[in-house]
């Protein structure tokens, strides 16, 4: 493993000994980084390592407290708030920056519309967008409103937008976090194409195998410090993980204990139909971890939104512990011991402007009230207990949810649903966009809950995760169950074959 000097000034865009403090809290300590034209340079590190801050400084969204930015060999002060785009430095945010109510074309040309004497040249813009969409392999009309697109499609629109700006430097914050493998491949094709054109690409990801696949060099940050920069070919995945965490991560997944095939059946879903899913039937045993795999959009989330009363069922029966029920609301599902932990932490999971305590008790609030009156001591006690049980790390107990790291938000969300004391927990994308150390903790929480007899459904697009923690995996495809694998059959090949429709034993009703 060859580690280069941090003081590299051979790049198109270089950070020279950048330090940054927010108020009195230092987050970056004299970090240097060089990004060369025609390379993909991955930036990895745990949540809170300072990746986002470094990225934002290098694209002008933050000012460094000390240190310099060197662009094209000259020290520069980047214009704030995305003004650096005019210089050819484009940042694609993790939270996509698209106007939901505007069309794809309007978004791509937002602020730089093609116009003649103030009148929009719509045909010219549409023609350009059609070309861009074809380049990124997105088969949608340029007049589609952003709100009608899936998260993955929105991501591709962002990339098309960046490409339309003739970016010399493209900085991407976890672009693959919400993409399926097929979509990731399309993205990587574009990334390679841009690299060949001489674009300098900075790439942040938690998915190390992708880093290995796409990047030329890797820089690792830990706790705001530069740990090392190496050619990707000199590192294997274990090296990267070790550099990020600073310790060995041999046991990312807890040992999967043998499932008890005689355990009671906690949940039976029979012939479930909704608008987008057909004939879903499965059983979930007490203490079992059941994985739900499949492509994004295959209907996994919808199955459980229907089970929990979030979307209407058209047909089918749901039985929990022997009682047939149909939940009209999330409250009824909660009272019956079923909770759903959303994959959309920020949009559907947490009140971002509220503190930990309000968020923690929201789902189970009736338990914290005598008649209507809130028992605030009980709430405070619950927070203390949850912080300890789920190792939620916050500098200040009054911190607002939006100021917490993704990993701590996820732990808080897990703590929130556990306050309802559920018997069945459905977790949608348990570790999306969180660092490897927190992932490990969450897997252990899940395993521990199952060992206590809680039944768990894990919906995930992360293949190693599904394989690593599930007793049994159901694969969905186009709104139907394509197959079920268990034991030694839980492997990537089997799952991919079912998800892609290659296995013949697809169940048709």
């Amino acid at each position, binding site marked *: 493993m060859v580690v280069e000097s941090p003081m590299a000034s051979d790049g198109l865009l270089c950070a020279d000994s950048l330090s940054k403090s*927010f*108020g009195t809290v230092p987050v970056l300590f004299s970090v240097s980084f060089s990004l060369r034209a025609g390379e993909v340079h991955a930036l990895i590190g745990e949540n809170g390592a300072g990746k986002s801050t470094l990225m934002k400084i290098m694209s002008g969204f*933050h*000012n460094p407290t000390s240190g310099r930015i060197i662009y094209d060999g000259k020290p520069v002060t980047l214009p704030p708030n995305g003004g650096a785009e005019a210089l050819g430095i484009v940042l694609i945010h993790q939270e996509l920056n698209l106007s939901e109510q505007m069309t794809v074309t309007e978004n791509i040309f937002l602020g730089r519309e093609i116009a003649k004497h103030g009148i929009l040249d719509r045909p010219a813009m549409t023609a350009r967008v059609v070309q861009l969409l074809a380049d990124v392999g997105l088969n949608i009309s340029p007049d589609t409103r952003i709100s009608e697109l899936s998260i993955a499609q929105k991501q591709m629109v962002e990339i098309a937008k960046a490409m339309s700006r003739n970016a010399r430097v493209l900085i991407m914050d976890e672009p693959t976090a919400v993409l399926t493998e097929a979509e990731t491949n399309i993205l990587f094709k574009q990334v390679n194409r841009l690299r060949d054109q001489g674009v300098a690409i900075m790439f942040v990801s938690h998915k190390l195998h992708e880093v290995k696949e796409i990047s030329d060099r890797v820089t690792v940050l830990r706790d705001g410090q530069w740990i090392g920069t190496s050619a990707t070919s000199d590192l294997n995945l274990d090296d990267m993980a070790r550099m990020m965490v600073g310790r060995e991560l041999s046991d990312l997944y807890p040992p999967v204990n043998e499932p008890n095939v005689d355990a009671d059946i906690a949940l039976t879903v029979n012939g479930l139909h909704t608008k987008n899913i057909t004939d879903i039937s499965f059983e979930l045993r007490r203490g079992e971890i059941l994985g739900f795999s499949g492509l994004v959009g295959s209907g996994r989330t919808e199955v459980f939104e229907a089970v929990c009363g*979030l979307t209407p069922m058209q047909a089918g029966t749901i039985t929990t512990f022997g009682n047939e029920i149909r939940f009209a*609301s*999330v*409250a009824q*599902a*909660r009272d019956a011991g079923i909770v*759903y932990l*959303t994959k*959309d932490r920020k*949009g*559907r*999971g*947490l*009140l*971002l*402007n*509220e503190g930990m*305590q*309000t968020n923690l008790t*929201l*789902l189970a*609030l*009736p338990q*914290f*009230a005598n008649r*209507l*009156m*809130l028992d605030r001591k009980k709430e*405070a*006690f619950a*927070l*203390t207990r949850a*912080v300890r049980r789920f190792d939620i790390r916050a500098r200040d*107990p*009054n911190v607002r949810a939006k100021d917490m790291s993704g990993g701590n938000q996820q732990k808080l969300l897990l703590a*929130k649903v556990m306050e*309802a004391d559920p018997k069945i927990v459905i977790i949608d994308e348990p570790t999306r966009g969180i660092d490897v150390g927190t992932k490990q903790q969450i897997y252990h929480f899940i395993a521990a809950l199952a060992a206590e007899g809680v039944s768990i459904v894990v919906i995930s697009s992360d293949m190693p995760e599904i394989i690593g923690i599930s007793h049994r995996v159901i694969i969905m495809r186009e709104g139907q169950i394509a197959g079920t694998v268990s034991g030694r059959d839980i492997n990537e090949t089997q799952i991919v074959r079912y998800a892609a429709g290659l296995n013949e034993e697809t169940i048709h009703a």
Partner: protein
Amino acid sequence: MPELAQTDATIRKPKIDLKMYGPAIALVILCIIGFSLNTAFLSEGNITNLLTRSAFIGIIAVGATFVITAGGIDLSVGSMAAAIAGIMIILMNALVDILGTGVLTVAVGAGCAVLLGALAGLANGLLTTKGKIEAFIVTLGTMGIFRSLVTYFADGGTLSLNFDIRGTYRPVYYDSLIGVPIPVWVFIIVAISGWFLMNRTTFGRYCTAIGSNEHVAQYSAINVNKIKTWTYVIQGLCVALATVIYVPRLGSASSSTGVLWELEAIAAVIIGGTVLKGGYGRIGGTILGALILTTIGNILNFTDLISNYLNGTMQGLIIIIAVWLQRADWGKSKD
């Protein structure tokens, strides 16, 4: 356990926030200005008058705080007050033949007013939630309906309360209990109940959650439609209560009754620090907001410096300045 106790204490550590005390500071400054212009400003008579006049807008604004905190808006409150006043007067006049001019007539009339308020609020609430129409549009519609109803009932003129009932009803506005006028008592009770409901109950927490993010609320097992509908019902009840104590003041209702009350109520809520787009509500701030608005009008009455006709200008300036002060990032680094 000591470790636990310590964490507990830090969680409840009170945060000193200048924005929090902004409305109170503003009110104190206004009082100082008022007193320096005319010492009679702080006379017992004027204070009593000021509080009584604040009561109407204040009571309505407490209701509006719930609606706005839960992410809604109610533009119909002024018209609703006029319609309730009109119907209540017609009803009381009609009841004279059956029940006479005693307390019973007034009680039945007031009871019906409260019922009407609740029903009007329920209509606003159901149209917004079950009807899935934006609150702004629903209440813009009902605003027009309620206003035209009172004009129609009064045949374009004025509805006057039977003279004898006026005598029976009069004390509700003009009498005092332990030196405090009845309307002020009602205001105090509504304010305390509102504060308790907002800050100490699951209902208040649910309002905040819904206004903050409806999706999160729905995924957190909150019956969003029910809670939102209830906020409009509470608003309707507050309007009815304000109307019941307002009618004996003049003993009449016309198409100009309650004009622009909706804007004054919303202004009081916003000056008090509640966020217009929802998710954060302060009943205490709303009370101060209502007092600030009335105090401005009162000060202008006391002085010749600025024409009383510019009352609206002063109130408008105060609203804009208040929100500007709330928005500014005092002492935060610009990152």
